């Protein structure tokens, strides 16, 4: 739920008891006022009637009056000093509705005879008053609701604008370009605090990122020279004709390990460079051409393992990609399709203008999704020459070029598909 909708709701909820309380107080005030007036009228009426009865019964006769709202009759009771006034329910004349009445009851001695006087006045107007007050309160409530909605809409449009602007920036932020992102000063203290913190955070993140990136790059670079030394020394050692078979084997194993280390290092460097956007280009190239090049390059290996390659080049898959990355993308995918294939297996390459798919048979099971593009997520059954970075590189290239990469295991085939943006 939107923050504004929430505040509006809470506001309105808080308004309900407030309005109800206000209505009640208003009603009580009016009700008292009315009672007070009616009571005065009742007392006044009584005085008039007492005077009248006094005059009528001056000759010693008795007086009885029974009207719907007036009762005067002699009674055998002790007269009381003050009249008692109370609210009762009673039948409305002619109608069959019960309505409240204000009733005065008094036992008065008139010419020595105690008379019971009961006068009542309808308080129908009170019910009307309640209805009126309720209506007004409801109207106020609806009016408040509408006003709040309108205000909030305006507030959301204007007041929250800097917040939305910041949010938009955060959404499109990328680690590599974080140093270019500035959260502007606004006229609102809270947003200023937020933006200042965001600025500090992005600066920190970016500098940390630079440090790590630089470290990765430097570490990889610094490793190249010792690797070169070790590798060349092994190569020289291998030239010694006095070496025994086991010694040669030992050197070769060490050379192999060094070679793998070198390869690993180069892959890490490539990843670091992709992340540092060192391979930006405005030129487009056709992945079909790159694929043909690598099919040609891998031809011996494919033949050697009796792998059948089926190609369906329906259209040209053109993409804005640096040649180095295109090479890396295709050689990794096609290389994997060969490397993880079985002898006598199959590779299918299907290319249309929007989709580029490579499928291959393999003895390795389907790759679990959480392992798929992870660095060093090499399957247990991988041949020795894997760096475990190939798919991570492919994924990184796809991500940085707005390409979508999907993996599926269907009909005994592993399939990787690259899709152009906007499909």
């Amino acid at each position, binding site marked *: 739920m939107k923050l504004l909708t929430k505040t509006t709701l809470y506001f309105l909820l808080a308004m309900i008891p407030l309005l109800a309380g206000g209505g009640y107080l208003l009603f009580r005030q009016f009700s008292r006022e009315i009672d007070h007036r009616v009571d005065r009228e009742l007392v006044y009426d009584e005085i008039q009637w007492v005077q009248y009865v006094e005059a009528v019964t001056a000759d010693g006769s008795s007086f009885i009056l029974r009207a719907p709202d007036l009762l005067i009759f002699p009674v055998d009771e002790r007269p009381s000093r003050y009249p008692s006034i109370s609210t009762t329910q009673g039948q409305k004349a002619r109608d069959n509705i019960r309505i409240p009445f204000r009733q005065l009851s008094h036992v008065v001695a008139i010419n020595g005879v105690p008379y019971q006087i009961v006068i009542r006045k309808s308080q129908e107007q009170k019910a009307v008053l309640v209805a009126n007050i309720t209506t007004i309160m409801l109207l106020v409530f609806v009016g408040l609701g509408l006003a709040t909605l309108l205000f909030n809409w305006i507030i959301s449009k204007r007041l929250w604008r800097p917040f939305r602007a910041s949010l938009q920036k955060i959404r499109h932020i990328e680690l590599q370009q974080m140093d270019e992102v500035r959260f502007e000063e606004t006229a609102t203290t809270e947003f200023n605090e937020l933006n200042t913190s965001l600025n500090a955070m992005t600066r920190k993140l970016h500098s940390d990122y630079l440090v790590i990136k630089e470290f990765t790059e430097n570490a990889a*670079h610094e490793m190249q020279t010792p690797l070169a030394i070790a590798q*060349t020394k092994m*190569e020289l050692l291998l030239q010694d004709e006095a070496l025994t078979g086991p010694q040669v084997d030992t050197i*070769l194993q060490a050379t192999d390990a060094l*070679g793998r280390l070198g390869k690993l290092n180069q892959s890490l*460097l490539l990843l670091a460079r992709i992340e540092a956007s060192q391979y930006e280009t405005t030129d487009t190239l056709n992945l079909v051409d790159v694929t043909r090049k690598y099919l040609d390059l891998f031809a011996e290996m494919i033949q*050697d393992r009796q792998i059948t390659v089926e190609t369906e080049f329906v259209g040209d898959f053109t993409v804005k990609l640096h040649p180095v990355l295109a090479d890396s993308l295709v050689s990794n995918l096609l290389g994997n399709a060969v490397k993880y294939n079985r002898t006598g297996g199959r590779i299918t390459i299907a290319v249309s203008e929007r989709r580029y798919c490579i499928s291959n048979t393999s003895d390795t099971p389907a790759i679990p999704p959480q392992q798929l593009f992870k660095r060093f997520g090499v399957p247990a059954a991988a041949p020795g020459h894997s760096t475990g970075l190939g798919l991570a590189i492919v994924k990184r290239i796809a991500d940085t070029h707005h390409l979508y990469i999907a993996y599926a295991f269907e009909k005994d085939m592993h399939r990787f598909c690259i899709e152009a943006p906007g499909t």
Partner: protein
Amino acid sequence: MNMKVLIIEDEPALQQSIKTYLEHQGFVCEAVSDFLSGLDKVRQYPYDCVVVDIGLPYGSGLDIVKELKAIESPSGIIIISARGALEDKLKGLELGSDDYLTKPFHLSELNARIQAIIRRRSFGGNKAIVFNEIRLEPEAQSVTVEGAPVELTDKEYRLLEYFIANQRRVLTKAAIAAHIWGDEYEQVGNYDFIYTHIKNLRKKLIDAGSADYIKTVYGTGYRFTDR
């Protein structure tokens, strides 16, 4: 007749490896390990080829390349660098370096490239490569054995050229694969298929009347030798 090579590399162990290997292959080598002495050397003497590292004490190897171009030196230049970034590579080549090799590299690869550079520079690529009865014409990429032409595929030709450049040295399968197919070939895994190519080359040469120079070094790789 001996070709002179200057090695400018600040890492003594690597410098020594390069020197040893190149001397084995018949080069006369001089080695220095910093920018200033490198600059001194190239100003004093025209080498056939200068092998220069980019990251040097007191200066950048790229400035040595610039200096060589400024004094219009006939030396071939090959940059060896730990920095494999494309712009470094392009910068080096743009400044006039003939080749660029990223560390780590195979000594046999460096040697083959130096020989190719010298051949291109000194003889316009016209000089034939001769190994006993085998004669290679780099321009036409043709091969003859005692004057009789031998039909080789492109890869077999490059294999032979590489073998002769690194004659008498043990070449590992990894080094051979990297030279003929490029580093990316490691994507597919093993090098067993090399065997087929070498077998074919050996058969074609022997059939044409050449001696059997390609020796299998068990488990390791191959050696091209007349000894």
